[in-house]
């Protein structure tokens, strides 16, 4: 297997961000030749992970998902994200981006596998796409993390997360939640005013939490519970899939109206009653 001539690499760089041009270059590479994986990865990262403009004008929010709905039965979130996208809620998902279209077309992955093979890389194409577990047990980020962060950075309006058991090492907690909280473009998340999540982040930061741990706590304490609460209301099948008792009974602390998603977020201030409780439950991390 031989490396392609510099001409192909130059063409790939010129095709920056264009699916058609990039695929044109990839499909012109002859059998027995490969493009260095580093160039391929840079090319993939140049694809847009924002929702296509033609769809963006017609949506009211964005879907995020992670982990299993039921770990024991291995029930994933996919049927529920599909249900959300087909609902009248007018939500977009990362599948509505050019980046996803580029990856799912298949040519890129085939070339990446060929390159990693030619380079005798210790990584597989799955490692490059989804990340891999490092010696310290943390996950190195993959191309999907790059796309997901960009998708989150451009999310506005109302977010719905299917994250009842989100994995702290996977894309949502590591790459999407930090960006959503940094960009502050959302009005609601899981039917709750987004300020609730921002306030909790501030409270945790004031208590000394930072880095990955900060987002893991926000996810575990707030996002998972509100996701369960919202999705139970949205889909009859969700509670059945969830099966286990709900870990967070937010009805005790928040408004009973869990269909707040498309109400004016500013009119619902019931969450303010919980601020003191948040402060009281925060302990200084033992570092």
């Amino acid at each position, binding site marked *: 297997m031989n490396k392609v001539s510099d001409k192909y690499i130059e063409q790939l760089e010129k095709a920056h961000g264009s699916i058609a041009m990039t695929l044109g270059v990839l*499909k012109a590479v002859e059998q027995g030749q490969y493009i260095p994986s580093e160039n391929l990865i840079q090319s993939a990262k140049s694809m847009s992970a924002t929702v296509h403009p033609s769809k963006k004008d017609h949506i009211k929010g964005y879907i995020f998902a992670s982990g299993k709905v039921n770990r024991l*039965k291995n*029930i994933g979130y996919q049927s529920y994200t599909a249900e959300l996208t087909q609902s009248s809620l007018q939500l977009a998902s990362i*599948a509505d981006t050019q980046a996803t279209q580029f990856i799912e077309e298949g040519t890129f992955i085939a070339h990446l596998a*060929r390159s990693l093979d030619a380079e*005798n890389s210790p990584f597989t194409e799955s490692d490059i796409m989804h990340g891999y577990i490092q010696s310290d047990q943390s996950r190195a980020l993959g191309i999907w993390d790059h796309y997901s962060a960009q998708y989150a950075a451009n999310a506005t309006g109302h977010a719905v997360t299917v994250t009842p058991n989100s994995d702290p090492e996977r894309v949502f907690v590591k790459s999407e939640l930090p960006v959503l909280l940094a960009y502050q473009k959302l009005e609601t998340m899981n039917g709750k005013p987004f300020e609730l999540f921002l306030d909790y982040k501030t409270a945790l930061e004031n208590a000394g939490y930072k880095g990955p741990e900060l987002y893991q706590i926000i996810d575990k304490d707030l996002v998972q519970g509100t996701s369960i609460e919202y999705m139970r209301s949205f889909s009859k099948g969700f509670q059945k899939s969830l099966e286990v008792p709900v870990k967070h009974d937010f009805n005790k602390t928040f408004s009973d109206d869990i269909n707040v998603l498309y109400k004016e977020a500013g009119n619902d201030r019931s969450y303010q009653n919980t601020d003191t409780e948040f402060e009281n439950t925060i302990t200084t991390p033992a570092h």
Partner: protein
Amino acid sequence: MPYENDHTEIYRPFTIDRERNYTLNDIPAGPDGIYPFILDLDGTEIKFACEKTILDRFQDQDGQWRFNIKWEVNTINHPPLKNVNDNDIENHISEALTAFGEKHNTSRIGDIVVKIHPHARQNKWHWS
């Protein structure tokens, strides 16, 4: 007819003809890392989606990196099959995935383990 594929080397679909006639059609994996496939086994369509775990990565005696892979089937959907149990289906899927790996990544695939999750038949198939 060892393999059929188009000239772009896109992963899907391809046919192998060993003892059985298989056609494996892969549906591209999205960000969730779930890999859906449709396996045509002697005319019976088996739809399955699985998670890929690299059990072991090692260098062989020539210094080439190789990977032992576990595919856990978490969703499977197919018409009734006579005289075929889960172990048989796991073996068919394993053979098809091995051929799939050999086609696309000849030197890098080591052992493949396929396990159907006990709840896989109750989980919904929703890929096209």
